């Protein structure tokens, strides 16, 4: 299987202390492999510190990997990217209040990008700006506003317009709705989903919110402490999670539709330090299903289609209440 966007054996370490010779390293990503087919929405889900945002930054070209590589159509992309390579992958950040320059009007911000990348001739910039506003469902006068005059949801639309201005092939959305009010999250999610469909873009959707991920993604990878512990098409993952951590995550989510089924409850232990080397499976000290093998050897991520990294996985029997039509 050759994917379109390939992430191969990607590791990222951050020095967090120690000396220059002998630094203390935070292992944010530990040999991650992902392959994303063109036109799909690939979800990455996990809790804080699992490395999902670091992964977004590496793919987005903001952080250099310590080892491994990101390649698009066989061409390796590092953090140093120029011109068209830069444009191909764009990002939408979590907090649009922070990701938009407060000193720049929407028009100036977008015009600067269109000019710099010479995307449209100067006399067509106005038309393109109007088109971009229409794409994100914003009225045209918004162009002359500053971010502080906009609401959270509107700002996020502008941030999406900024990404779209560069006509990217891949959009990385890093928790794009978690900073927004409940009532406006839906409009941003619907917008992203529509754009991916209409423009044939590929999206990497990063979130801690399982319900949102289930709603928007085609395929999902679950991360824990810098590694992928399970990866599957969305339907399979949610109806029959195999890794106990995925099961724990799902049982922890409060639900409205169905009474929560507590299949797996993680033990009250602390997550191991991301600085320390880990023997065996990183989840074993919190895993209620752990066996002796788990502490000794790290299980590899096995399987095509639905893959999991576990010595003692959950039963594949699907959750009955999970997909029941409502």
């Amino acid at each position, binding site marked *: 299987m050759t994917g379109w966007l390939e992430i191969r054996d990607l590791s990222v370490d951050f020095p967090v202390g120690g000396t220059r010779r002998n630094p203390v390293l935070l292992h944010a990503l530990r040999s991650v492999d992902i392959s994303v087919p063109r036109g799909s929405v690939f979800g990455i889900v996990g809790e804080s510190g699992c490395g999902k945002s670091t992964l977004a930054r590496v793919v*987005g*070209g*903001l952080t250099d990997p310590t080892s491994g590589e990101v390649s698009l159509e066989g061409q390796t992309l590092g953090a140093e*990217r*120029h*011109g068209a390579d*830069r*444009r191909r*992958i*764009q*990002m939408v*950040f979590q*907090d649009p209040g*922070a*990701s*938009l*320059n*407060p*000193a*720049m009007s929407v028009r100036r911000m977008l015009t*600067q*990008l269109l000019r*710099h*990348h010479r995307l449209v001739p100067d006399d067509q910039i106005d038309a393109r700006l109007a088109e971009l506003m229409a794409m994100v469902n914003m009225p045209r006068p918004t162009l002359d506003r500053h971010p502080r005059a906009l609401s959270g949801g509107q700002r996020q639309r502008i*941030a999406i317009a*900024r990404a779209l201005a*560069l006509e990217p092939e891949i959009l990385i959305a890093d928790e794009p709705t978690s900073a927004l009010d409940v009532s406006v999250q839906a409009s941003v999610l619907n917008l992203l989903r529509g754009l991916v469909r209409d423009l044939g873009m590929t999206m990497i959707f990063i979130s801690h919110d399982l319900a949102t991920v289930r709603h928007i993604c085609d395929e999902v990878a679950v991360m824990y402490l810098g590694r992928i512990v399970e990866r599957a098409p969305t339907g399979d993952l949610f109806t029959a999670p195999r890794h106990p951590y995925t099961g724990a995550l799902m049982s922890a989510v409060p639900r409205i539709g169905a009474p929560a089924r507590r299949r797996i409850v993680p033990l009250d232990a602390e997550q191991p330090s991301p600085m320390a080397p880990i023997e065996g499976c990183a989840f074993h000290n919190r895993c209620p299903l752990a066996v002796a093998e788990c502490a000794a050897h790290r299980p590899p991520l096995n399987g095509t289609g639905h893959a999991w990294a576990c010595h003692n996985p959950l039963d594949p029997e699907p959750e009955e209440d999970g997909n029941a039509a409502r």
Partner: protein
Amino acid sequence: MMARIAQRARRGARPLPMKARIGLTILAAYILAGIFGPMLLPFDPDKTDILRRLKPPSNVHWLGTDQLGRDFLTRLVVAIRVDLPIAFAAAFFPMVIGTALGAIAGYYGKLADTVVSRAADLVQAFPVYVFLLVLVFALGAGATSFIVAATVIAWVGYARLARGEVMRLKSLEFVEAARVTGLPERVILTTHVLPNALPQTLIYYMSDVVLMVLVLSSLSFLGVGIQPPTAEWGRMIAEGQPFLRSHWWLAAAPGLMLMVFGTGLSLLADGLDDWLRS
């Protein structure tokens, strides 16, 4: 959440604080007086009349005359045209140079930062006034040498301010976002980072102008600033000194002009700072 409510409610109309309005009024009054005052006053500020020296205030000379018989009010007002432009210029050049150097140091770090920071340390190693006096002596008294000397010394403050602001700003998400869109670092620095550091710089500039006006008159008082017969407040204080017992206002009035101007500009800077932070 509560902050947001309070903020939104306030944003309806966020008026300038009283401090800033008072300061702005004082500054405007000085500038208007400087522009139109000399046109309205009938006297030549430099024309001496030894027979009419040291007259008390009268219908003709509202504030009397000085030790050389020149109209005192005219000289006080004409001095605005000397003190203000020189002070604004003496703070302007260091602002431009210091902000540029500080921004480069803060944004690119490494060697640029080392060079700029060490140069700043070097300047600050000398006592300010001594250094300034030495420079003005070396360059010769006068407005130009004062501005040059001020620039050599005062850029340091702007550089430190800009360096700190830029370092804070460059880690913010919108700068990263700009990087993702492929803009070159130089463009990000000038269009995304610096404009956000500008308000703080301008506020610092205003308080720096106050300092410059005081330094300029101190130097003139000591005789190495603006040379006679040009009307300048510091010089006028020095010239009025011998007559403190009989004609106290000759020294007090220029002092008051300085003090009110300094207070006004400080109020404006302080008020604007509050306004921007709220």
